[in-house]
């Protein structure tokens, strides 16, 4: 690795003239991002509450059943995740697109309306879940009338950022990849709104949304945000970073599109998906591996002068943890002959938690950690609290993943191989949920510290443009 230090790399030269004053907020309308980040973090905190109550219910303490039965807690937990991540992505876009396109946001007013209406839809959905108003479709539970509101909302968002981009002075690869991810995420929401009498066809198209989001176009959003962060933090030449961005998103689609097949093994779809899904989903970790290697390499290549160490920590962190959580742990149960036994068990929850955390949760926390000092002019990065937030949340999540994994593997052996009844198995694996709750407490402590630090920054101010 050391050899490349000596190579005459194009970026090397431009590095020397890096002016780190350039990483301040540049456009007043970037301040809009703050309100999206704030909303995202508060919904994240609420998501954790529901995670805990579900953990207790798994241990047999289903005391809240009358108010919030398990299916309502579960729908709330996963939908809050989707909503806070989308708010984080939108906030990221509102921060990044003006800066990349060198133009004020087309309409800050529309952005605020869009945020408030999105939050309203979220609140109505969560209340609705608790009143038995929903669709029983994993991850897409929100009732149909609200789906239409989401579509209108996302169209308003896309209109706003696209207008900003087109009226801007430049269209960078980073901003185009980010926009492409957001655009296709919106488009792919539509197959989830079709009705089929057949459960199999309903599932088939539901994965068009869910899989092609998280293992497809969301990775474009991730790549775009990651590229932006790396350009800003490492100071490596944009052309180098954006070249690798293309390679990464290329690998994502090369493996991820046909990788959808791993959801079509056992739902009444033809058996050719067994080998197609098996082969291509086994390749899916490559995109995440490329992302991790890319982030580390760019960090090494860059001059390590950027003072926002917290943003750097989360940026490198998201690249590495997504490889472990989404890449490796996904690959661990993606082959058809393994998935035959793990399909529909807690093994999936093991993979799901660390994948979402590493790839998307940490990514949103990375862009927030990067943007906050610039938006507010306060330099609260690299303190004891920010370091503790990073390490506690990650150590907690590793513990949770191990707990889910142990519970899941035990479940597979008892229920699927030894033929023990489902509920008897669940009672045997209850102790793992105690470990889960303990680790989740450590995780939540980290998140609470992160949020406290967020509030310490205060509100964004126009003075940040001048003072920083």
């Amino acid at each position, binding site marked *: 690795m050391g050899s490349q230090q000596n190579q005459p790399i194009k970026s090397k030269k431009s590095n020397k003239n890096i002016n780190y004053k350039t990483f301040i907020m540049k456009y007043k309308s970037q301040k809009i991002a703050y309100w999206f980040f704030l909303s995202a973090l508060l919904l994240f905190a609420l998501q954790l509450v529901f995670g805990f109550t579900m953990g207790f219910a798994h241990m047999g303490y289903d005391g809240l*059943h009358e108010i919030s039965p398990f299916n309502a807690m579960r729908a709330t937990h996963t939908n809050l995740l989707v909503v806070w991540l989308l708010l984080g992505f939108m906030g990221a876009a509102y921060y990044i697109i003006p800066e990349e396109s060198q133009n004020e946001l087309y309409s800050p007013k529309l952005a605020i309306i869009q945020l408030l209406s999105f939050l309203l839809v979220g609140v109505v959905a969560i209340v609705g879940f608790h009143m038995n108003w929903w669709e029983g479709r994993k991850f897409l539970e929100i009732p149909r009338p609200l789906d239409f509101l989401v579509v209108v909302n996302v169209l308003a968002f896309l209109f706003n950022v696209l207008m900003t981009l087109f009226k801007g002075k430049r269209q960078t690869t980073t901003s185009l990849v980010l926009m492409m991810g957001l655009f296709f995420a919106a488009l792919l929401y539509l197959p989830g709104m079709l009705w089929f009498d057949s459960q199999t066809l309903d599932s088939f198209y539901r994965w068009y949304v869910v899989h092609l989001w998280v293992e497809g176009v969301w990775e474009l959003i991730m790549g775009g945000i990651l590229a932006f962060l790396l350009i800003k933090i490492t100071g490596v030449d944009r052309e180098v970073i954006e070249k690798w961005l293309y390679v990464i998103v290329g690998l994502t689609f090369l493996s991820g599109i046909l990788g959808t097949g791993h959801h079509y093994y056992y739902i009444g779809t033809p058996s050719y998906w067994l080998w197609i899904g098996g082969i291509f989903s086994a390749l899916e970790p490559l995109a995440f591996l490329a992302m991790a290697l890319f982030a580390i390499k760019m960090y090494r290549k860059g001059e390590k002068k950027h003072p926002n160490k917290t943003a750097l920590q989360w940026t490198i962190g998201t690249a590495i943890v997504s490889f472990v959580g989404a890449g490796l742990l996904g690959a661990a149960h993606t082959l058809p002959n393994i998935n035959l036994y793990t399909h529909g068990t807690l093994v999936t929850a093991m993979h799901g938690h660390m994948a979402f955390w590493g790839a998307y949760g940490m990514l949103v926390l990375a862009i927030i950690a990067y943007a906050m000092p610039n938006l507010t002019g306060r330099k609260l990065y690299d303190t004891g609290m920010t370091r503790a937030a990073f390490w506690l949340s990650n150590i907690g999540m590793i513990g949770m993943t191990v707990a889910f994994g142990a519970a899941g593997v035990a479940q597979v052996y008892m229920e699927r191989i030894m033929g023990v009844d489902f509920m008897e198995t669940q009672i045997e694996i209850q102790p793992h949920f105690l470990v889960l709750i303990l680790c989740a407490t450590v995780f939540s402590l980290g998140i609470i510290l992160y949020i406290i630090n967020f509030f310490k920054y205060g509100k964004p101010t126009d003075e940040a443009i001048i003072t920083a």
Partner: protein
Amino acid sequence: MLSKSQAKLFFLAGTIIFSLLFFGLSYDTVANRVGEQTHEENLTESAIRGRIIWDENNCMGCHTLLGEGAYYAPELTKVIERRGGPYIKGVLMSKTPWGEHTSGRKMVAYGLTSEEADDVVAFLTWIGEMDLNGFPAKPTYKVEKIK
């Protein structure tokens, strides 16, 4: 060394080729295969009503069906074979939370009417007869509870 425009070409070509392949396979699956494999001819009016009840009450929020859903309550793909229709009907019509006195995990007391419960049983019966490429696997052993 790879140039930026080559990288862009790799991305665009890969995306277009694999999208087309995916849509082609999807078309074959939906148009030619699923009907036969899931015995769509047996999907009765009653079973469709059952599916709507299944959907409207978010049963997938606790159970898995075809291995999809949440991991809180039993897998139901083969539940008719395992428990029989009348047992399922009893659970669905129960006026008190099922499971309250055994596992501590409670099922919402839906208190369905007899007709509604029959519809859900018809739906689950249809599910149970699908060709699922070997899922769920038959357990290798059969253990007995000693105490």
